[in-house]
């Protein structure tokens, strides 16, 4: 039944709900569904709502797959055996939410067992409706049922609207995944699949391909699936930490666990509870930490360092490495059992040289970030075609990070007009000038400050020695003139608007340069001169 007119409740979001609000009644008894149907249809606010019915779990899930359902009124007992997952409404909740994260579930239960209600809410139910009235009479009880359904519909409608806005505006596809090549499309599809399971994921790929961003993307998918925005994402790079530090960072510690442990500290595993733990460079951890990590993955429980109480932590583990784990296993540096545990879902992110077609898309995606960092305004259309061609023909080392650096160089070294706008089209000489500038810097300046002053300071000019040499020459000249006027470093620093330490440092350098060179022979001669013995 297609709704022709929306009830006032939904007028605020025209077009947001595809086919009007809808409710699914799941109960194994026809007569209960009929009664609920009557209760709902008697409400003027719920008159236009589309109602679907299912008598068992299979039918319900099939309907949820087909239709966009906003509220599910779900009977707790869908059959005589509540231990059978197909006949237990509470156990059906996660399946419903995985299909329709925006749907709100109202448990409809005849039992007054608080434990069931708590369990249902834990699994993600919106609320519950008791079949038995609290003695207030049939009419009041049915009003309560209508009120609960209306509340759930309102909430579902707000969620649908909110999540769509979030999907279209707040969470664009991550930069590293903006490519359209077959390989990257496969990676992107895999991400969505692995996000649905709680099993560990291993990200493989060269440095700079964006493994961290991909881990965050998996986390975002999971948040969307669970319809919970407060799930934590904890990121720990293991290669930067020592063995002891890794243990403390991962597991936390109790107060007094070791010298200097003045307070109890939560570890990353504890903090990642119900969220995602991303361990970068997993190949770098020591065997004893590997054992502990395996235990946590198996048992979902751990103890803090120096602690005896087991703490529960249920998290999605994402690991990344650019090392060959198989080789490490062969050498005995990586535990085989942990290897199999984490490599079940492995995603290899291809390097940039294997997806050259994506470079224009990546450059386009990188521009806003680089503009922000280099304080240069530019659009993709302003980037010279031959620059992009150049990147495609000789992709920079470091994958996406390398691309980022190339763009930073282009934006930083490009000459500016009087309004400060960069001439990006003269990019080719930048690379050459930078190289020449560096060489000159190493062998010392070959032009004077006065020469430079006479020039137009055009960094594209053949004679420009490079930014570092230019800066050095300017500073030397300023110091030279400043020294005469300001014998005290503090005054000179004030006048030059630099830190006093900069002036002091420069003075020390100049003093060293002015000091007469004394070679070893002279020193020897001085040491053995007769005056020493007089």
């Amino acid at each position, binding site marked *: 039944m297609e709704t022709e007119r929306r009830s006032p409740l939904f007028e605020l979001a025209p077009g947001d709900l595809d086919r009007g609000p809808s409710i699914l009644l799941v109960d*194994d*008894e*026809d*007569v*209960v569904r*009929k*009664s609920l149907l*009557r209760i709902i249809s008697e409400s003027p606010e719920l008159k236009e709502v589309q109602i679907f019915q299912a008598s068992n779990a299979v039918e319900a899930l099939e309907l949820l797959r087909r239709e966009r359902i906003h509220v599910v009124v779900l009977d707790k*007992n869908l*059959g*005589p055996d509540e231990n059978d997952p197909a006949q237990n409404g509470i156990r059906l909740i996660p399946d419903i939410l995985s299909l329709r994260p925006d749907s709100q579930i109202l448990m409809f*239960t*005849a*039992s*007054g*067992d608080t434990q069931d209600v708590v369990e249902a809410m834990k699994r993600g139910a919106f609320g519950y409706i*008791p*079949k*038995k*009235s609290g003695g207030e009479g*049939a*009419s009041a*009880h*049915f009003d309560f049922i209508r009120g609960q359904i209306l509340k759930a519909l309102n909430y579902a409608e707000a969620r649908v609207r909110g999540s769509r806005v979030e999907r279209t505006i707040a969470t664009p596809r991550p930069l590293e995944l903006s490519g359209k090549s077959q390989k990257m499309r496969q990676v992107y599809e895999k991400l969505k699949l692995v996000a649905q399971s709680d099993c560990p994921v291993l990200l493989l790929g060269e440095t700079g391909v964006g493994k961290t961003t991909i881990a965050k993307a998996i986390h975002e998918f999971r948040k969307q699936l669970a319809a919970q925005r407060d799930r934590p994402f904890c990121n720990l790079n293991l290669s930067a930490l020592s063995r002891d530090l890794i243990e403390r960072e991962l597991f936390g510690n109790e107060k007094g666990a070791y010298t200097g442990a003045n307070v109890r500290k939560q570890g990353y595993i504890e903090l990642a509870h119900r969220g995602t733990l991303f361990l970068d460079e997993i190949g770098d951890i020591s065997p004893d930490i590997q054992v502990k990590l395996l235990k946590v993955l198996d048992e979902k429980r751990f103890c803090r360092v120096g602690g005896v109480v087991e703490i529960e932590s249920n998290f999605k583990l994402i690991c990344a490495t650019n090392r060959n784990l198989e080789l490490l296993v062969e050498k005995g540096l990586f535990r085989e059992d942990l290897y199999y545990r984490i490599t079940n879902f492995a995603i290899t992110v291809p390097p940039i040289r294997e997806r050259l077609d994506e470079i224009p898309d990546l450059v386009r995606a990188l521009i806003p970030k680089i503009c922000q960092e280099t304080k240069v305004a530019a659009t993709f259309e302003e980037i010279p075609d031959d620059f992009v061609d150049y990147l495609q023909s000789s992709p920079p080392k470091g994958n996406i990070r390398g691309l980022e650096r190339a763009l930073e160089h282009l934006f930083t070294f490009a000459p500016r007009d009087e309004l400060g706008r960069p001439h990006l089209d003269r990019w080719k000489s930048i690379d050459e000038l930078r190289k020449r500038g560096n060489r000159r810097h190493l062998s010392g300046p070959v032009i004077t400050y006065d020469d430079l002053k006479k020039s137009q300071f055009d960094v594209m000019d053949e004679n420009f020695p490079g930014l570092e040499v230019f800066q050095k020459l300017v500073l030397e000249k300023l110091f030279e003139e400043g020294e005469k006027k300001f014998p005290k470093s503090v005054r000179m620093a004030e006048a030059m608007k630099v830190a006093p330490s900069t002036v002091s440092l420069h003075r020390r350098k100049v003093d060293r340069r002015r000091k007469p060179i004394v070679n070893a022979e002279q020193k020897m001669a001085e040491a053995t001169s007769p005056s020493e013995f007089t």
Partner: protein
Amino acid sequence: MTKKNAPVGQENKCVDHDLGTASFYVESLSVALDSPEIDRPYCQELVRALGLRLQSASENLPLGARVGDQEGEARRE
């Protein structure tokens, strides 16, 4: 669906469930009978379902409540 022969120790829960559902039928019936146009088949269905529920509750009553019930005694043992 009736919850006959509830596992030992689960009888109270089953009776509670049956009575809760029965209560819902009674309320539905009461509202249906109050309406200006009585839907006879629907009311009959409710009465039938109510009967089954009450029967199920009776069969699942805790053992102590059925003195002399041989079946109950056998299950208790």
